[in-house]
C-alpha cells in the first residue's frame, strides 16, 4: 500500500473510522512468530545479565537472535539501511557496557534491548539531520514516509491489547502515536504531518498515553 492511499484510509476528518487494512487475514504466521519470540523473553533477560558479568558469548547469542530485528526497528526511524546497521553496531557496544545495570525484575529484556536501539536511532537522526540529503535519499524518504508506521500497525496480532486500545483512539491520534513510536518522529514532524498546531500535537499525544494506560490496565 502506498503512502497516499494509506493516508486516506486513516481518515483526516476526525471520524472514528477503522482503517481498512485492519481486517487482514495474512497475519497468521506472524502471530506464530510473535508467540515464539515472547516465550524467549526470559532468555533475553538471562543473556543480558550474563553480558553484565562479562560473558561475550551471551552478547553474541543476543546478536544472533536479534540483530536482524534491530536493523528493522532502526531502519523504520533512520530510513537508510547503512545508518541502521551503524546504529545496531553502536547498540551492541551500549548493550555490553550497560548490561550490568539491567534489572530483570523490572522489565522485559527484549524491550530493554530495543529501547537502546530506538534511542541510538533517534541520536543518529539528530546527528545526521544537518547533513544535506542526496536527491535519492529525499526520494527514498518520501516513499518511505508514512509506510513504516502503517506496516507496523498491520503486523499487530488481532488479539494484541495494544491494537485494541489504539483502535479506540481517534484515527489521527492513533496515527500520531504510531508515527512517534515506529518512525521516531518529533512533535514538530508529527504536527506537520497531521497538519495540526504543535501544542495540539503535544496534548494529543499526552491524552493518548493516558487513554492507552487506562485501556491496557
Amino acid at each position: 500500500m502506498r503512502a497516499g492511499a494509506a493516508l486516506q484510509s486513516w481518515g483526516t476528518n476526525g471520524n472514528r473510522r477503522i482503517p481498512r487494512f485492519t481486517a487482514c487475514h495474512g497475519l497468521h504466521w506472524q502471530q506464530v512468530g510473535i508467540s515464539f519470540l515472547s516465550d524467549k523473553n526470559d532468555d533475553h533477560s538471562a543473556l543480558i545479565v550474563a553480558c553484565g558479568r562479562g560473558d561475550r558469548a551471551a552478547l553474541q547469542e543476543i546478536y544472533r537472535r536479534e540483530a536482524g530485528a534491530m536493523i528493522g526497528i532502526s531502519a523504520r526511524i533512520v530510513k537508510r539501511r547503512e545508518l541502521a546497521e551503524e546504529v545496531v553496531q553502536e547498540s551492541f557496544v551500549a548493550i555490553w557496557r550497560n548490561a550490568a545495570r539491567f534489572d530483570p525484575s523490572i522489565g522485559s529484556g527484549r524491550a530493554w534491548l530495543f529501547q537502546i536501539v530506538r534511542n541510538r536511532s533517534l541520536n543518529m537522526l539528530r546527528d545526521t539531520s544537518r547533513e544535506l540529503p542526496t536527491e535519492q535519499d529525499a526520494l527514498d524518504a518520501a516513499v518511505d514516509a508514512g509506510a513504516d508506521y502503517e506496516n507496523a500497525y498491520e503486523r499487530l496480532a488481532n488479539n494484541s491489547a495494544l491494537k485494541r486500545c489504539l483502535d479506540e483512539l481517534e484515527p489521527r491520534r492513533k496515527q500520531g502515536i504510531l508515527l512517534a513510536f515506529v518512525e521516531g518522529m518529533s512533535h514538530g514532524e508529527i504536527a506537520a504531518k497531521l497538519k495540526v498546531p504543535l501544542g495540539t500535537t503535544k496534548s494529543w499525544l499526552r491524552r493518548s498515553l493516558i487513554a492507552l494506560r487506562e485501556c491496557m490496565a
Partner: protein
Amino acid sequence: MIAHDPNEDFLLAGEYVLGVLDGAERDAFERRLPREQALRQYVARWQTRFADLDNGVAPKDVPPALWSKIEAQLSGKQIAKATGPGFSERLWWSLGFWRGASFAGALASLLLAVSVGLLAGRATPQPQIVAVMLTPEGVPGAIAEIHYDGRINVIPIHDFEVPSGKTLQVWTLFDKAKGPISVGLIERTRQALFHRADLPTGQQQLYEITLEPAGGSPTGKPTGPVIVKGFGALPRL
C-alpha cells in the same frame, strides 16, 4: 533534590518511550533514571505496552561483517588520540604541578574543572560519570568524563613533569579481584580521548594516573607513583 509529581513522571516516561522528548529533555530524563527506581518502573511498563509494535518487526538481513565490527569496537584501541583544541599549547606536564597550591586555588581549580568539563560536554551528549582526580596533596590535577558510548575524556588541569623515558598511564579500578585495568597511555600533551566501551562505568569506580616506563607498565598493573586519583561520581546537572 527536586520533588517530582508521579503522574507527570508517568507521562514523561511514556513520552520517553514514545521517543518524543527533545534532546535536552531526553538527556535530563536519562540522568534521573539511574537514581530513581520508580521512573525505571514507569519506563518498563510503557515498553511492555508498546512492545508488540517492535516484536512484530520484519527482521532485515544482517551483513556478515557486522559482528566483527562490534568485536573490534569492544576490543578498542588503547592508545589515546589527541583531540579538540588543546588545553595548552605547551607541555602541561611541567614542574609547575608539584609547586603545590593554596586551598583556595585548589577549590577554584576544582570548580573550573567541573564547569569546563560540563560545558565541553554540552556540544556532545553530557558525561555519564565525572571523576575529579587529586594529587597526593589533595590538589585537583585532572578530570575524566566518562560517556555512555565508551568515550573517556581525560582533561589535565595542572602542569605535570614527565621525565624522558617515562609516560603517563590512566587506570581504572572497578573490581578489586581484577585490580586496576589500563585505560590507556597519554602520549600527547593535551586532553586525551579514549574509546573503552569494554569497561564498566560505575559510580565509586576509581580512576588514577601513574608514571610508568615509556610504552606503558611492563606488568600490566601500575608500577610507578600515583600522580592523581579520584572516584567517579554522577554529575548533578
